[in-house]
């Protein structure tokens, strides 16, 4: 394979991995902490992308969209959680899947009513337009920005999860929620914060993805399946798992489409199948312990 072409595809893989990561981390930690399977996580991503479109339509810059849309999407996500999703918190994954799939349909239709069926575009800021030279390859600046943003957020989340009190509370809750409660920790409050941060990051993903993939009804479903696979492969509830899973699926998807175009989807499911056979709880799951007695 031509080395320039290879480098370009590696960068494409990285860029896609970062978008997957922004969605996967919220889904994974929310599941790890509360055992809640929130498939409507992608709806927040889509909502933020549409909000970004509106902001830029109204004359706002891309940066203003990047600032405002994730916050709005996060607030709406949290509102949705308290108004609706919380009702099935104790009722198992089937009830959660049914309800959140319902939310996906409702969210898509609502956005359709407001914005119509046609895809919308969000343009990138002027100084990120065009390409720049990366080791002899002309590569779109905006995609490099996505990679840089993803890496920066991984760093921020690492510090937040591993070095702060809130991070310790989250890890404790993922390990063993009941024991955390016996220490006087209000896990419901920690969870609300995690849910809001997760929705914010999904919203950020939506805004960042908008200029590359466009904004259209159903953009959430196409990505949430991949994100679920990321979480299964990486392992639930851990930052390392979300990073590793995102990279594996990002690369498998990109290179699958190049090397075996007819079987591109199969590459991803192959990675998942191998992970499930050899590491059924994922590559880097949170270290929860089994409760005896």
């Amino acid at each position: 394979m031509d080395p320039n072409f290879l480098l370009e595809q590696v960068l494409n893989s990285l860029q896609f991995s970062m978008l997957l990561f922004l969605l996967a981390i919220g889904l994974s930690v929310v599941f790890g902490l509360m055992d809640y399977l929130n498939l409507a996580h992608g709806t927040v991503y889509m909502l933020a992308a549409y909000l970004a479109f509106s902001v830029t339509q109204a004359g706002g810059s891309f940066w203003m969209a990047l600032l405002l849309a994730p916050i709005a999407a996060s607030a709406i996500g949290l509102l949705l959680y308290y108004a609706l999703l919380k009702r099935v918190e104790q009722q198992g994954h089937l009830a959660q899947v049914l309800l959140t799939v319902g939310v996906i349909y409702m969210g898509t239709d609502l956005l359709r009513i407001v914005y119509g069926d046609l895809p919308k575009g969000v343009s990138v800021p002027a100084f990120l337009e065009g390409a720049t030279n990366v080791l002899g390859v002309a590569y779109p600046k905006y995609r490099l920005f996505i990679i840089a943003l993803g890496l920066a957020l991984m760093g921020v989340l690492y510090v937040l999860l591993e070095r702060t009190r809130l991070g310790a509370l989250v890890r404790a809750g993922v390990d063993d929620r009941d024991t955390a409660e016996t220490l006087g920790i209000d896990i419901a409050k920690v969870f609300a914060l995690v849910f809001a941060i997760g929705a914010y990051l999904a919203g950020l993903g939506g805004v960042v993805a908008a200029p590359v993939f466009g904004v259209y009804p159903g953009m959430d479903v196409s990505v949430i399946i991949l994100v679920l696979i990321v979480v299964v492969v990486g392992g639930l509830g851990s930052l390392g798992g979300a990073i590793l899973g995102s990279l594996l699926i990002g690369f498998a998807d990109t290179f699958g489409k190049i090397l075996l175009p007819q079987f591109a989807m199969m590459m991803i499911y192959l990675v998942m199948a191998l992970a499930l056979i050899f590491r059924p709880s994922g590559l880097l799951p949170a270290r929860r312990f089994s409760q005896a007695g």
Partner: protein
Amino acid sequence: MSDVLLKVEDIQTYLGDSHIIQGVSFEARAGEVVALLGRNGAGKTTTLRSIMRMAPPRSGAVTFDGRDLRGLRTYEVARAGVAFVQETRAIFPSLSVEENLRIAVRGKSDWSVERVFDDFPHLAARRRNGGAQLSGGEQQMLAIARALVASPRMILLDEPSEGLAPIIVEQIAALLLKLKAAGMTMLLVEQNFALATEIADRAVVLGKGRVRWTGACEDLKGADDVRRTWLGV
């Protein structure tokens, strides 16, 4: 006569469809150590979990320091001043030893994190290690220390000696006696009869979800039929 700190009144607790606790009542006065004894499956752990509202009773009342615990969540019971050292020790494996302590700190305790490390050099040597890397004895010490830093008014201990080497059990016993001397109220579930009666003032004997005997530990040593029937010792 000291004040009653914990009062358990006719609680009935179910786990799924199983009627585990069938009307248990007892109390613990401030500064008293009460042993909760009984065979496996007698309902000792479920009684502790009922008090913490991890397994909320279907009826009956638990009162702590005059406050009705009904309707509270587990974290609220903990904040009311009840600490729970579980049988599994429940050390968070994803947290370092120090983090396991720090997230539990609440109020102004006699036991700061620094004092814990001064008093337990084994834990101090492993303060940055993951909670999963500790031996059984170290996990138990950490579990008790984690209860202490929360400034509890009472500690519930579930089988603190279980699975530990005799020398470690002696250290645990010494620690519990030190806490007792400092006036800490404790409810101690223990299979080790000698250990329980050494530390506790009074014993409550459970059998098949009911209280079968209550009295001073000294009297229990002489009550052969109670011990044979309900404890097997």
